[in-house]
């Protein structure tokens, strides 16, 4: 029992979740109003409940402020406001998803406020469809694609680009 089991090939396949046709990506989905959005799960550092922020004066309204994440100052962005959706009251389900964002040549840690975390999806790459050129409340520039899961539409965000734009741009780069 105690002896380490030799690792077989089929076990490895199980671990990576690959059945027979390899390429799959995992996404964490969350709700904003009626829509379900998703981000690459590898970008997610942690999920924490909403516990208030320190507002930063004279910033765009979607920058809610900064929080103390174990000694690091992390800005928090309200995705509803970022996308121009009506603001909602923060409730017990309101969560902050802490993400590692790469943009402008460096990695930053940022939090996004969403209505609720929904699910983790294991999506085959070929099921991702290119984003429509119009129709979503999000500027299509920040979309990575769409996917259908159990008849629901999942909007996959290019979170790096989204959170390196506008007010959140690094220096001169990444604006737009």
């Amino acid at each position, binding site marked *: 029992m105690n002896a380490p089991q030799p690792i077989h090939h089929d076990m490895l396949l199980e671990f990576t979740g690959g059945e027979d046709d390899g390429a799959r990506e995992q996404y964490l989905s969350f709700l904003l109003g009626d829509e379900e959005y998703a981000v690459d799960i590898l970008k997610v550092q942690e999920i924490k409940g909403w516990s*208030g*922020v*320190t*507002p*930063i*004066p*004279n*910033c765009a309204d979607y920058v809610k*402020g*900064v*929080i*103390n994440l174990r*000694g*690091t*100052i*992390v*800005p928090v962005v309200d995705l509803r406001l970022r996308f121009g959706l009506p603001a909602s009251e923060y409730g017990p389900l309101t969560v902050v998803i802490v993400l590692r964002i790469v943009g402008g040549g460096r990695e*930053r*840690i*940022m939090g996004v406020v969403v209505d609720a975390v929904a699910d983790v999806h294991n999506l085959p790459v070929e099921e991702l469809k290119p984003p429509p050129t119009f129709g979503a409340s999000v500027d299509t520039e920040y979309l990575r694609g769409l996917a259908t899961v159990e008849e629901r539409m999942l909007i996959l965000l290019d979170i790096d680009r989204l959170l390196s734009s506008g007010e*959140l*741009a*690094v*220096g001169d780069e990444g604006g737009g």
Partner: protein
Amino acid sequence: MDDMMSQFLEVFFEESFEGLDVMETALLELDSGDADLETINTIFRAAHSIKGGSATFGLGEVSEFTHLVETLLDEMRDGSRPVTAEAVNLLLQSVDCLREMLNASRDGGEPDRQRIEQLGRELHMLRDGDGGDGAGIPREEGETTAGEGEGCGWRIQFRPHANLFQTGNDPVRILRELADLGEMEVTADLSALPEFALMDPESSYCAWQITLRGPASREQIGEIFAWVEDDCDLGIEPLAAEVDEPEAAGVDQEGVEAEKSPPAIESPTDTEPAGSGTTPAAKPATRRARAGGEASSIRVGIDKVDDIINLVGELVITQSMLGQVGDRLEEGEEADSLLEKLFAGLAQLERNTRELQESVMRIRMLPISFVFNRFPRMVHDLSNKLGKQVELILSGDKTELDKTVMEKIGDPLVHLVRNAIDHGIEMPEERERAGKSPVGRVELNAYHKGGNIIIEISDDGKGLDAGKLLAKAWEKGLLPEGETLPDEKAYELIFHPGFSTAEEVSDVSGRGVGMDVVRKNINSLGGAVEIESQPGKGTRLTIRLPLTLSILDGQLVRVGEQTYVLPLTAIIESLEIDRRNVKAISGQMELYRLRDEFIPIIRLYELFGIEPDNTRLDEGLLVIVEGDGQHLGLLVDDLMAQQQVVIKSLEVNFKKVEGFSGATILGDGTVALILDISGLIKLARARAASMPGEAA
């Protein structure tokens, strides 16, 4: 190997730069006349280790140059050469030159070859000069053998052919025999070494560059190589000729061989554009060293580290003590009896934490001598150039301050010392006429006071002329014509942008972009600069700086529900507003009359767009702060605690926000923003400009 090498290389550079600093300091001591043997020894030792190191790392140019310097020093050491001002000057220049060469090798740049050659020639001339013959035959103490280039030594290029071993010869034997002839330095050139798998154990791949010093003759060397002459490429040149024209000599002697032979570490410098040096890995290695720059490491005294280890030990004890209290509580022991233990533990924890914090901070602290050390040289050069006689007195150079602060204070200090010498100290005759000693004094003094470090720069020169300053201010339109100021205020004018009092612009100072930049730099470090002057007696500048940039003494202020931190150093006073003293200018800007000054009021809640307790001026408090040389009144709802806060950057994960220098985490875990006075001024100006008439 390259990874290892580059790591050692970094250490070598660091140590060499330190060595050069040591040489410089010691040379300046020699300069002032009190030359003792120990000082010369110090210089010699530093030069010697640089030479050894550079030879090990294949920096041939550096080691050859250092060798020249070392030879001179050696002669001074054994008394066969007097210590002249000329020699010292030349050695000082050589130190500069070496520094440049090392910089160039580290950053992959090109050293100024002309300068190296020129200096090399001068060093030779100096040495040969008192030998008398001057024909490239340097005088060597003691024996002298016949033949060209003897005495100083030989440089030997030894590149065995691959079949050397098959002829029964052993290069080690040859090297050993050579070593018997004198002091020898060998650099192995491994660039021809193939991959391990391709290596033929019976072939020879190594080549050697040998510097042999001593009275050996060419014949003696030839004899040693007699057996292998046909099985190798051999170049033997006298050392002196070689250094005169390092490149030319190398190519002449070795022809094509020389192209292959530059040691691996130098190849990136030589083949920068092509990037296809003999060892590709060498290039990134050098690059990395460059990116690391000078700030990459810090030397910490072992005692400081031991301190921290002790403190961590205590912390662990405290933790286990608190853990015990927790366990006993869990076991249902009476809480009352444990309460005392708990408090004792917490008090101990607090003390441990504070001490640990202080100790960790101390790691970053360096003695200010790191900055001060450059001044003797600078004063020496500058006073020579200006024809003034200046004595520099340094005191308190053991005073420690944060490395970051130190790096930023260097340039402003240089500027101030230059100013003191250029503008402050008079020419010797003038000083004598004024009944002063012809030798001017510039004093640099550093000491701790409270949580600050104070640096004073004083001179006993002519002092500032308030009248002249005022005239200049009128002329430049900084002050209405004819308006006068009290002397202290007039002195402050020199901090005004575009203000320079040098009667003629020299290349030493007086470009008119000086003192304002100095003040700005010091302010940006959270410090302040003050000036005192007495006509005919001198000028004293006092710089006050925080010890560290990562901790700040802050005053917490409340505006509505938000808490902000004001740097304590910026606060002048806080007061309750007397409505009668508030004046409005054209309905836009409010001014508060405090004694004889009108201070603009900034309503923080308005600037930050937050809901305050109330908007009535007389219900709040006015905090008078100073920033960018002007006063400002900040309207806040309440003053809260004063405490030390740890500064956290907003830029790491977000960006620079105007009006804030950073953020901090308060005791309850929430974030508070730290106000930046000059940013607030800008913010308020921008606000006033964008919405005229609304601020009333």
